[in-house]
């Protein structure tokens, strides 16, 4: 995974198109490419679910789409306009059409201001309507998200529950009548019962107002419920894109399958089929693995995965994967006898892994200029991320892929018998 490419982009009816998006933080040796050549598109009225672990760059992607943080390169086209090229004043105006809902509902509201004031604000900033009209609109919007303006309008965020605050945040985002709503983990801080209320609300609003949504979350079940299309992200790159029913029933990327396996099912009889949890943590994006970025945790990693970055390719209509060995073609997984998720991959130790100075990092031993990649707006044929060290012998079967993992106990725990 962790692949690039644009094979999954569609030609028609696209409202929002993001191509070769790159966002970097920091400088010098600590330059981190949080989003590394990500492309996706969202059709009008569609909900795109963006899933991945913490630190995979999904929130940064969301913020770059709303131009809250300018991408370092790449393009964000919205209704045919290139947003990254707009001047500041034009951008502000264009951005009213793309609004965001943030993760922590309580801290995203000003603790010292009343709820009604917070919701009126977007109209006041733009000077839309008279004072009474703004007030009336705010009250109507609050009501549409299930908040009684008479009861709650004067309250401070601290006087309300997390679910109510999230409703207020949604109301505030709707005040300028946006076309696109970017929801960044809107339910991850909420209890399951309240989470269901908010997900239903978002679905209703989407239908009533014809909203297009980018829904960012780490919970695959939540994403499946709200999305028309799902993109799985890992370490700044996309792994798999598809319609939820295809992607969840026939995951092609080993990472997608690992994420699905990790979901706790509320059913004591649901044996986990001898599948072990994915081991280890996300490697550091400061020094990402060469080739496929998932290879350090992938049970099927081969030499090719270290040498060559996989490109997005179609496995089925509207189902794309960036993997050299997709599960449906993988001889290990298609062997009907056993499910193979038992490979004891030792933990990737990014801090000490002598990986290549891949892509962004100005490694001390490489000249600074050459370690920067070509701008991702060039054709999707990437710089070969070939390791500068001699290739390791390829493990034929799933084996510890860390170079120094021999004497270390594997991180994974045996599943319960």
């Amino acid at each position, binding site marked *: 995974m962790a692949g690039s490419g644009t094979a999954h982009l569609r030609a028609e009816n696209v409202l929002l198109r993001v191509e070769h998006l790159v966002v970097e933080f920091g400088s010098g040796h600590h330059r981190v490419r949080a989003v590394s050549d990500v492309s996706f598109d969202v059709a009008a009225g569609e909900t795109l679910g963006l899933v991945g672990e913490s630190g995979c760059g999904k929130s940064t992607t969301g913020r770059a789409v709303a131009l809250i943080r300018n991408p370092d390169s790449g393009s964000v086209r919205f209704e045919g306009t290139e947003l990254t090229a707009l001047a500041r004043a034009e951008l502000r105006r264009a951005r009213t059409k793309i609004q965001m809902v943030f993760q922590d509902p309580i801290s995203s509201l000003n603790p010292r201001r009343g709820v009604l004031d917070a919701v009126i604000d977007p109209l006041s900033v733009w000077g839309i309507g008279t004072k009474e009209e703004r007030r009336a609109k705010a009250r109507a919007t609050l009501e549409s998200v299930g908040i009684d303006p008479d009861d709650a309008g004067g309250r401070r965020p601290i006087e309300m529950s997390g679910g109510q605050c999230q409703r207020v945040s949604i109301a505030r985002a709707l005040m300028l009548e946006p076309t696109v709503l970017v929801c960044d983990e809107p339910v991850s801080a909420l209890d399951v019962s309240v989470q*269901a209320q908010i997900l239903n609300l978002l679905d209703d609003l989407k239908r009533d107002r014809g909203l297009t949504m980018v829904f960012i979350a780490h919970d695959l079940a939540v994403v499946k419920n709200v999305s028309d299309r799902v993109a799985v992200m890992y370490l700044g790159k996309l792994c798999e894109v598809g319609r939820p029913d295809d992607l969840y029933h026939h995951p092609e990327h080993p990472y997608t399958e690992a994420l699905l396996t990790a979901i706790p099912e509320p059913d004591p009889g649901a044996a986990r089929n001898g599948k072990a949890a994915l081991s280890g943590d996300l490697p550091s994006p400061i020094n990402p693995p060469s080739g496929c970025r998932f290879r350090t945790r992938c049970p099927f990693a081969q030499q090719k995965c270290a040498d060559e970055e996989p490109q997005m390719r179609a496995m089925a209509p509207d189902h794309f994967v960036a993997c050299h060995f997709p599960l449906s073609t993988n001889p290990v997984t298609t062997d009907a006898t056993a499910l193979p998720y038992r490979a004891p991959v030792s933990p990737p130790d990014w801090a000490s892994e002598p990986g290549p100075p891949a892509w962004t990092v100005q490694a001390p031993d490489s000249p600074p200029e050459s370690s920067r990649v070509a701008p991702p707006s060039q054709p999707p044929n990437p710089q070969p991320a070939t390791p500068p060290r001699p290739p390791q012998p390829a493990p034929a079967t799933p084996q510890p892929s860390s170079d120094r993992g021999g004497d270390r106990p594997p991180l994974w725990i045996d599943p319960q018998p």
Partner: protein
Amino acid sequence: MSPRRGPHLSFPEVGSIEGPLLEVEDLHTSFRTGRGLVRAVDGVSFTLGRGRTLGVVGESGSGKTVLSRSIMGLLPGSNVERSGMVRFSGHDLTTMSLPELREVWGMQVALVFQDPMTALNPVVRVGRQITESLRLRVGLDRKAAGETAVALLRSVGIPEPERRLRAYPHELSGGMRQRVMIAIALACGPKLLLADEPTTGLDVTVQAQILDLLAAQQRERHMGMILITHDLGVVANRTDDIIVMYAGRIVEQAPTVELFAHTRMPYTEALLRSIPRLDESSHTRLRAIPGRPPDLAAQVQGCRFAPRCPYVQDRCRAEEPPLRTAGQGHQFRCWYPVGSAEGDAALAHNVAARVPAALAFTGTRVRDAAMATPNGARRT
């Protein structure tokens, strides 16, 4: 350094005495606040056998965290009322003095907190936080404590433990920090481990790792464990028994398999049905529970779940149901239980009468405003 002198309670070795590890009887914990008495734990009783795992499930504000603090005796010093009995290995923890409790904390009963970043001291290296109790309580010297800490970190799956001992908490990822918290809790070999939302805020992949780790350690050390969570998915595969709490009370209690197979309490059913399922197709309408938990400071007549319950009848609003028994070890608190003839009739009646909670339960779209504040819960 010699171990600090304590009262030297004698706790029998695991397996050497009969009877359960932990017995909680009619535990009440209330906080005196400006709004009145908040009954956070209101008459909770259960027993936990040695080597068994108990899941405690409920929404925020259902009193599950206060329950764990009440069992430990870790409550604020003032404006708290606690009554009832907590008997651990035959000793009543509620009557113990602070020096006696210090013998219990860590050595006998340990707690894994929800948020490892705030539970760990940010300016003290991880190693010292682990060895602290080993040196003070167990009385190991510096070298032995260091070696034990390395072994502990290795057993919780931290690579290169020697190096990690020198790390500060901020240098570790969230999953690693939670592993360190678990290592600290396990350091003195407790007989009972309380894990309070140990995986909330972690990614699903890391959550699976941490839960597997807890289960493995629990089996290996034959500990009793109480796993507190708001997610029924987390406890489904990993507990022997489950307690469902609502507004400070136990509303259903059963062996895990029984609870999922024969759910009786409408609240448990509602919690289960509000979880988005992977096997449902997208845009399936979720069966949300309308409203939110009641204000614990308010005096409630009748069943506390009544304002949100799809099965609610007049009797529920007037009279609080007692804990009723259904089969082996299965108790619930409901007049119109799920799966019974009365329950089915009550639900059908409510759907016909277009009660919002019942309509939401059947997946009908209900105007949120009609359900958001069913009892004006928090208005002060």
